[in-house]
């Protein structure tokens, strides 16, 4: 990593087609960032007992079981399909994380400046400044950031800001045994992802698509984007997220007009009969 001059924006490319659902990313993240335990519960809905991202979960592996024919070109899958030809079960596994949006609503609405854009192009909460106002939580279109109980402040993935500072990759990417989580300069990752989608399409996996890689999407492109094998909402991701602050200028204009109308309306209530006796 260059020590001087312009630093390239870095990010994650999470290729869910090679995720094996081992949850090493979840564990590595918890360990490295010393995130407290947030309830050891069995949900009963799937292998997913983590359920979603939050103040104490910065990587979350989703498990989706689908009754769909498996048409993967990889040998091991073919073998598995032959062994169990009657079932048409398909597993989807995906490790979700903060998207580190180009237009980050959480950062925009933070009133204290606790949320900021780092020199790596990532979005991080300064825990010594956050006063727990909670505004970033409903602002996030992905349901990533949340308030830590008993602590009161908002927490989320920092993309291991401390590790980046010394030229190391984030703990989750380091721990991923299949390179489903890839870390690097965003431009490079986008190229790599595009060619991976092409390869998959050529191999007959036509449902492969990128999510969050488009710089013209509602958040200006995500710093952490994904290769998915189904619609985003299947993975609990919003299909067309938009940074709410996109509409803010028009909201301010309307609030100003409403305020002026209110003042004029009240003034009109006094005009009619002038001064009191």
């Amino acid at each position: 990593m260059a020590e001087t001059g312009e630093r390239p924006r870095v990010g994650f490319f999470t290729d869910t087609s090679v995720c094996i659902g081992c949850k090493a990313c979840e564990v590595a993240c918890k360990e490295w960032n010393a995130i407290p335990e947030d309830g050891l519960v069995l949900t009963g809905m799937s292998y997913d007992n983590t359920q979603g991202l939050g103040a104490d979960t910065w990587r979350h592996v989703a498990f989706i079981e689908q009754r769909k024919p498996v048409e993967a070109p990889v040998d091991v899958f073919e073998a598995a399909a032959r062994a169990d030809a009657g079932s048409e079960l398909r597993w989807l596994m995906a490790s979700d994380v903060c998207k580190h949006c180009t237009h980050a609503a959480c950062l925009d609405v933070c009133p204290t400046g606790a949320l900021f854009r780092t020199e790596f192009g990532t979005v991080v909460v300064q825990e010594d400044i956050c006063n727990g106002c909670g505004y970033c939580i409903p602002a996030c279109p992905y349901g990533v950031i949340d308030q830590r109980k008993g602590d009161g402040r908002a927490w989320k993935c920092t993309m291991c800001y401390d590790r980046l500072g010394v030229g190391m990759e984030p703990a989750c990417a380091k721990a991923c045994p299949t390179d489903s989580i890839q870390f690097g300069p965003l431009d490079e990752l986008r190229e790599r992802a595009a060619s991976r989608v092409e390869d998959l399409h050529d191999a007959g996996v036509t449902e492969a698509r990128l999510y969050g890689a488009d710089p013209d999407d509602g958040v200006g492109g995500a710093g952490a984007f994904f290769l998915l094998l189904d619609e985003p909402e299947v993975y609990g991701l919003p299909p067309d997220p938009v940074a709410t602050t996109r509409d803010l200028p028009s909201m301010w204009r309307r609030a100003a007009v409403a305020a002026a109308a209110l003042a004029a309306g009240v003034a009109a209530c006094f005009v009619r009969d002038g001064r009191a006796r």
Partner: protein
Amino acid sequence: MTRTDERRAKRRRGEQAMVPEARFTSYYGMPVLNRPVWKALDIAGYLFLGGLAGGSSLLAAGAHATGRRALARAAKTGAFGAISLSLAALVHDLGRPARFLNMLRVAKPTSPMSVGSWLLACYGPLAGAAAATEATGRFPRLGALATAGAAVLGPAVTTYTAVLLSDTAVPSWHEGHREMPFLFAGSGAAAAAGLALICAPAPPARRMGVLGAAAELGAARVMKKRMGLASEPLEKGAAGRLMRASEILTATGAVLAALSGAAGSRAMPMTISMAMPRAMPMTISTAMPRAIATAAGAALLGGSAALRFGVFHAGVASAQDPVYTVVPQRERLEQGRGFSAAAHG
């Protein structure tokens, strides 16, 4: 086994669907968004009190300028009381209340909460000075300035809270962003008029009550119509009950406010009796208008409060059900109006 939850977004009570029924997929029915952590009593309470304060400051300035001492005193005291309670609620809602001053660490126009903090930091002392000078009768010139200053900032205090709610990914808050400032302006005016009708009924307060209530009822109607699927949480469950209660209370308050004027017209021949038909029977005692005005004021205050709590709870409910996040976004994509080109299925 396909565990992906497939449900239908259905309308309640078989009413005409504003949005065509949609099938949608979610991750085990779990919400896409994280639930807002704001406490209803603190934040919905603040929305109400902020509107009450802002509207009262306008009323106070009008009363001050036209020499209505009793009305001015009531409105100034009301504005200061409401904004003081607001500040307490806002600090109480923080995860780290001791760090409330961090709100003034930066000034960010992209953060409605930052704008609001600065607004309150300026408005609060003005409302305080206006109330204190009115109560003590000292420094009248300073009092007049503070009253005017509070009246300039008051409308902003009343309407910015709509931007505060709308500037989120919460469907039932964001989708109302066009009309919510007008809804909150009407609601704030109705609440301020309500307080005045209880404490110091006067013709301007009555008119403001009717006008504010009409604006509140009208804006709510338009907003719900334009919100699409996101209007559903405003009609269901606890939020729906609050919204209906608000409608009834506000409408009742407006009618009673108008009535109290008509009934009192004998006592105040120089005020509005010229315009109001003498509809009320002559048997009404002189105490009656005051009783009607008090009832009108209570109804308007209750209607305004119920509205804020209704809108607040509807937003929380919409964040907790993935249908309100996924279906409108999916429709946007399918109609080619989406932002995410890559997500086109």
